[in-house]
């Protein structure tokens, strides 16, 4: 499908400057620190822990991933991109790059939470990783298409969180519920089966719709 | 509130009234826009 040039380009820029990953890691660090300062020594239950984890992830994703299209507009390279690549290639390239960003965000989040919070115990690791992966895929698709939409608008600023967060909320509900259960039991499948199904179908629906609609946003 | 708790039929009445007030309010605003257009 010839998507690699765009992905490779973004990866190369990223490796050179490390802007995306560092912004994301900094955001996480600040968030975790804020939580630690505002609730020092507090016992954090599993549902609160799950909520904090996903709040950090979703807002981190919003800050980190929004740049993918906005930076093209700012650098003036989006016009060239439109000329040289098919919209599908641009979409998959950006989408996969955002996915990799979210994966690095998730890994950093897990590391930081495990290190800083003594109440962060994942009992069912396989299920935890599964719902994390599904949540990441859905978040990446939504933020990719919506940041493309916002980038075409002349004022980008606050529009992305306003558009993306409500649409992401069903994902938030499913993932926080699933994470909470993986914190509580070692055999989480029975409890999170419904959530996994929702995440899976939501991901498929959203990725499909994003892929189909992307060229309508992308063209002039 | 106690009165409403003891007479639930009035609660249903309030709900129906709220619905129709909402719909008529919306139509009233549309009507104002029509009048502004006609001017």
């Amino acid at each position, binding site marked *: 499908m010839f998507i690699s040039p765009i992905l490779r380009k973004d990866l190369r820029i990223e490796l050179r400057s490390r802007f995306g990953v560092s912004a994301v890691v900094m955001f996480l660090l600040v968030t975790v620190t804020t939580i630690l300062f505002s609730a020092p020594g507090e016992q954090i239950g599993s549902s609160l822990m799950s909520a904090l984890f996903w709040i950090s992830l979703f807002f981190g994703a919003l800050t980190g991933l929004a740049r993918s299209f906005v930076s093209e507009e700012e650098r003036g390279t989006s016009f060239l991109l439109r000329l040289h690549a098919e919209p599908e290639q641009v979409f998959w390239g950006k989408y996969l790059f955002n996915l990799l960003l979210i994966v690095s965000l998730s890994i950093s989040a897990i590391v930081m939470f495990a290190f800083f919070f003594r109440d962060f115990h994942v009992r069912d690791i396989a299920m935890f990783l599964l719902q994390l992966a599904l949540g990441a895929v859905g978040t990446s698709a939504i933020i990719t298409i919506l940041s493309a939409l916002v980038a075409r608008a002349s004022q980008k600023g606050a529009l992305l969180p306003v558009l993306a967060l409500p649409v992401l909320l069903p994902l938030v509900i499913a993932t926080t519920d699933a994470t909470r259960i993986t914190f509580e039991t070692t055999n989480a499948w029975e409890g999170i089966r419904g959530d996994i199904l929702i995440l899976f179908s939501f991901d498929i629906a959203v990725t499909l719709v994003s892929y189909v609609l992307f060229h309508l946003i992308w063209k002039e | 509130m106690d009165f409403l708790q003891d007479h639930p039929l009035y609660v249903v009445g309030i709900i129906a009234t709220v619905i129709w007030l909402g719909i008529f309010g919306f139509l009233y605003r549309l009507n104002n*826009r029509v009048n502004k*257009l006609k001017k």
Partner: protein
Amino acid sequence: MSKFFHSNIYHLLLGALFAVSTFVCFATPIGGSFNDVITLKMNNVANVTPVKMKVISLSYDSLTKKFYNVTDLYGTPARVLINSSVSLKLGDNLVAECSYMPTEKIFNVVRIERINPLLTFPLIQGLGELGRNMLFHVPMSFVAFIAFLIATVYSIQFLRTKKVYFDHSAWAASSIGLLFTTLATVTGSIWARFSWGSFWSWDPRETSIFILLLIYLAYFLLRSLLEESHEKKARLAAVYNIIAFVTVPFLMFVLPRITQSLHPGSSGTEAPVINLSGKTHTDPILSYVLWTHVTLFTLLFWWMKDLYTTILRKENE
């Protein structure tokens, strides 16, 4: 044909049907079974419960007291005591509030609601008169869903044909969908106050309807904040509308059914109106009135949408 649907006769007819339907919703008595009387008394919910029954025979007659043999709507036989001068014939249907006298094993009629009613609604334990809300609150959310669905269809049509009419129609339909969603939220909140105790408790069903409000409010925010050409604004708004609608089935039909919630139809309960087993747990009369109401409100929505679309077209010419 189209002429009729824009005529005054149609509007008057719709209004008349609404009046009749609303009257039926309020005037139809609610009658349960004798089992309901006993269960609700045992659970300390209510001492007196309305029962729908049919008179079989007169058991004992004095000037002030009458004992009748009756069967309730499920066919359960019982004896009732009526302390009034009302005389009932064999085969009469009766809806009356009854209390249970365990020592004598008879039911005491406290108040007669209706003799030989045309229609009755079934009693839903724990709801009583509030059950009538189902005929107003549920149609609101149904029509909201239909409105958002129509808006998405129009958005897709706009993206395919670029005709401005479809963009205006999507705008109008989304707006009315937002109206009905707000009404569903407000009526649900009022119902919750008198049924569950508080106006808002972030119950999963309440949360998902709130999220739905946010999503479509964002649609209008997008439309007003964009400073592009009309065509581009419409195109981007149409794309967002489609993305937004992807979440709607999850928010309205999937998520509230698998999480634990007080709302009927959540995990562990059986949804009375739409469920996978095909048959509904609602009494047929209730179903008919409910779906009639849904149809009437949908027709109302369609009229409002057409009106709003014309306004938008004239405003943006």
